[in-house]
């Protein structure tokens, strides 16, 4: 199970790297979504994948039964998803404003702040 998910994460990162190398700022953003989701899956997988064993503590017990998945990475992933969503929303608006004001999405053409000599 972990091996399959690991391959999937690898594929996501590869696709993301391909997209992020593009000159088009929008393609870069799509790459960013993919790689941030790959990072979230990575944390999730690092916590251990155990199907059909929810991390529930039985009534009156102090510890969950042996063999359940660690619930902490799932909490971390939730936090990271929320933060990532906020940052992505900002980045999307920024690129859109950039497109409106600079008139291009090509990052090679964005030379206002660093003009060619």
């Amino acid at each position, binding site marked *: 199970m972990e091996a399959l998910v690991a391959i999937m994460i690898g594929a996501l990162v590869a696709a993301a790297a391909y997209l992020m190398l593009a000159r088009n700022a929008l393609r870069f953003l799509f790459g*960013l979504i993919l790689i941030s989701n790959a990072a*979230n899956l990575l944390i999730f997988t690092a916590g251990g994948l155990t199907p059909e064993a929810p991390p529930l503590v039985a009534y009156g017990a102090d510890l969950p039964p042996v063999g359940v998945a660690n619930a902490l990475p799932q909490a971390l992933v939730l936090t990271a998803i929320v933060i990532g969503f906020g*940052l992505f929303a900002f980045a999307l608006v920024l690129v859109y404003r950039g497109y409106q004001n600079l008139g291009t999405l090509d990052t090679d053409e*964005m030379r206002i702040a660093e003009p060619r000599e």
Partner: protein
Amino acid sequence: MTPMLLLTLPLVVPFTTAILAFLFRRNREGRWISVAGSAIHLGVGLALLGAVWEGGPVAAQMGGWPAPFGITLVADTLSAIMVVITGITALAVAVYAVAEIEAPVEELGYHALFQVLIAGVTGAFLTGDLFNLYVWFEVMLISSFGLLVMGGSRAQLDAGIKYVALNLISTILFLSAIGLLYGATGTLNLADLREAVAVADPGVMTVVAGLFLVGFGIKAGVFPLFFWLPAAYHTPSFAVSAVFAGLLTKVGVYALIRMFTLVFVHDVGFTHTVMIWVAVATMVVGVLGAAAQSDMRRILSFHIVSQIGYMVLGLALLTPLAMVGAVFYLVHHIIVKANLFLVAGVARRIAGDTEIERIGGLYAGAPLLAFLFLIPAFSLAGFPPLSGFWAKYVLVKASMDLSMWLVAFAALAVGLMTIYSMTKIWGRAFWKPHPGGLVPTLREMAPGERAARLLPIAGLALLTVVIGLVPQPFVALAERAADELLDPTPYLDAVLGGAS
């Protein structure tokens, strides 16, 4: 004060100030709330430093969960010093912003975002938990994005896209590294990680350490990951670029120092040797980049890069003397760099530009400003008796003690090149007559504006001179911080030992 209060107040104060400043953003009071909040932040920071100096590292467990399960806030000498220096920079910039930031930008919530940024920086210095560090980085990042593009000029949007893109990549690398580290060790508490990393598979740990090095390296602006920095730091308002230049990259350096003294010391021969050469390349490339620029703020931005090299060098050498140098450099650099950006702001205000070919006559028209520029500029280049001299001297001596002649030579040569850049600014912007025939004087500003712009500059310059003339107490502080970094037993005891 109890440890809980000492550690939470430096966070509560800027957040409260941010809320108040946001509520009063349409009034003139907003800016004074920001100034008052920064002053209180500095005050609680000093109280924290005093407590740490008296009784060693303090720690508090949030929510009553004992370490390593809960989130720990902890301050050793380095953290406390950094909180104080954050307070000093925040106060200086908040006063400067009173004169610079105009009402429309204030109404967008400038002061609130600025205070949130300060809270994020302070949180990053105080946390003892890796995931919590990530959260503080995000707080810092999102407010810095807002501050950077506020006003929305074309140059700002252009710079903003690059700044946001590269910083988000760094964040994702950092997050992945946290995931892998947690998967391998099962803990996120920094003190607990030290034990866990020591017994984990060294190969895996070195890979994770590499991820952290790249993630924090982008934030700190080391070679070859610094390109976002000189692309962005010259575009926002001067108050914003001063606080960015002073504090933001230094949070990256702080995170590197924390991780590579407390957690990743399992394979020093590999990780820290890589860092030595990264540091040397950063120093040299940064200073050469600066030599090619002709805009004051772009020259200064490249100098940030080259100075980051010195701090990373101190960390990489990992001897007691080198650590003292790194901590001392960190403090000196924040003060001097923020100050130089503020001076550039006044030059822009009275001479009309920061492009040094298009301005001039500042020495003839505003000798006071010229004097206030010379102090931080000489300090940056490492002239005795200013603070930069001691910082550079300690680092060069530390590398010579290890017989690393090439490294010591690079550090000295970069100092020399720094003088070249500072002379260039001095010669073109201050000495040469203004090409438009203008004689820029400080009287162009109303008395209130003049005071708000010059007081922070004079205060920071005074601090540089005091550190230079009376270095002993500051070196003692840096020594204490370095001792705690190299032998973190008091830190570990504070976090894991006592259940406060």
